[in-house]
């Protein structure tokens, strides 16, 4: 299953995005800023997560005219978000020929039990996860890239850190277990044994593992990448800051030089104000985006 050609091509594009930054954009002007700053892809959406959070209402797939305009304007890959379980939005995005679909908790879920059966699509999917079980369930459904959920639109890195640490720790733990113990773990993780055994043998996910949700500064990027993320998604962090051009460039630099403090210092200087942040503990359960998805 995991070696068929379609799946290899889906994972292949995710491989090409490693070490880079995927930036949320809502129109062509923002997409140009992102591309000029060195984004390795853009994510088209109607509103950045911070605005979705503020304005409320139902958040859906972005208007097609906006996505089309972004696809026409930039030469880098264009991703777009579909609601969890909304396979019909996903079919529309596939027909539009976007390069990747994010089945995203940032939008209002369309189905409270089922995710999209992503194996049925030719276009690749990325999905969010907070722990290993969730990541492996999404991969079993056909996701070719996993990203931490973090807490989108919060400007607070704490949840992304919690999620990447959890996933990495749970993977490490599997590597020391015996075969019969893995059967039990698969049951606990609610994930297919085949995938649990793969992770135990390799110590990593069978697809690229990126980070998202709350990244606002170059140092945030370096933090999650040192914890094991292979690339980052930045949503509100860029276009809700005081100087999006400078911050976008700095965040790209941080994704390359995440292990080099001198370069990170250069990247962190002269950026103006970051986006206003939220204290996660002050949010009520119903305000959290990360709990969407099952």
């Amino acid at each position, binding site marked *: 299953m995991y070696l068929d050609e379609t799946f290899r*091509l889906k994972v292949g594009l995710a491989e090409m*995005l490693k*070490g880079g930054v995927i930036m949320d954009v809502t129109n062509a002007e923002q997409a140009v800023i992102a591309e000029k*700053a060195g984004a390795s892809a853009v994510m088209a959406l109607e509103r950045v997560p911070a605005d979705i959070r503020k304005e409320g209402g139902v958040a859906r797939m972005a208007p097609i005219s906006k996505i089309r305009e972004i696809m026409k304007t930039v030469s880098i890959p264009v991703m777009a978000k579909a609601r969890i379980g909304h396979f019909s939005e996903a079919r529309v995005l596939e027909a539009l*020929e976007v390069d990747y679909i994010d089945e995203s908790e940032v939008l209002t879920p369309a189905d409270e039990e089922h995710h999209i059966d992503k194996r049925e699509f030719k276009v690749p999917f990325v999905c969010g996860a907070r722990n290993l079980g969730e990541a492996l369930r999404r991969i079993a459904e056909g996701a070719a890239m996993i990203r931490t959920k973090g807490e989108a639109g919060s400007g607070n890195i704490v949840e992304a850190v919690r999620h990447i640490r959890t996933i990495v720790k749970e993977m490490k733990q599997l590597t020391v277990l015996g075969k019969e113990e893995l059967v039990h773990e698969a049951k606990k993780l609610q994930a297919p044994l085949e995938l649990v055994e793969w992770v135990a043998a390799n110590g990593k996910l069978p697809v690229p593992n990126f980070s998202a949700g709350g990244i606002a500064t170059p140092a945030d990027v370096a933090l999650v990448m040192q914890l094991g993320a292979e690339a980052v998604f930045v949503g509100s962090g860029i276009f809700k800051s005081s100087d999006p051009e400078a911050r976008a460039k700095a965040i790209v630099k941080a994704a390359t030089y995440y292990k080099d403090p001198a370069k990170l210092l250069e990247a962190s200087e002269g950026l103006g104000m970051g986006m206003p942040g939220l204290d996660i503990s002050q949010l009520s359960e119903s305000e959290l985006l990360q709990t969407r998805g099952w």
Partner: protein
Amino acid sequence: MARKRVGVLALQGDFEAHARALERAGAEAVEVRTAGELDDVDGLVIPGGESSTMLKLLDQEELMEPLREFGRHKPIFGTCAGAILLAREVTNPPQASLGLMDIEVERNAYGRQLASRIARIDAPELDGGELEAVFIRAPIIRRVGSAAHVLAAYRGDPVLVEQGHHMAATFHPELSADSRVHRRFLAKMEKDAVDAGSVCLHR
């Protein structure tokens, strides 16, 4: 034969996959992100990824000249985005490049991700039959100068080209289990000591 130490430009892209492929082919792979790190390697791979992202970083970190200088003396192998960076001319849209190989490359020439594909191609000069070629949002080499030599083609377009000690592929041999393409590149490091003077087409 001493194990070759090969750099993989790790600004962005599938540098990790290349490092694994180089190790499988019998070399030692090291990530390169600064000009200083070029001093310690016998050759360099420029991986797949987004050429526009790599170009921004090459510019900003002042790596263009050091890479051109490196290429004058040592072999460079570029795949996909790497091939775009090695080219003399880039279109769709036009962008700067290292100009180390006399080829013209059109970016994203097959289309978007849905046009990505895995093909089996003939590569008569690489012994051992057909070669698997993984194309991902791949470019097409539209023109090959007289100094460059086509090693493999797909649907009439060159996809694997060499010129002196440099090599360019529009596909991703690092995503296949077959090591022949990487081994051919490693062999250039053996030859390198003998014919140091390849043509440089730097603009």
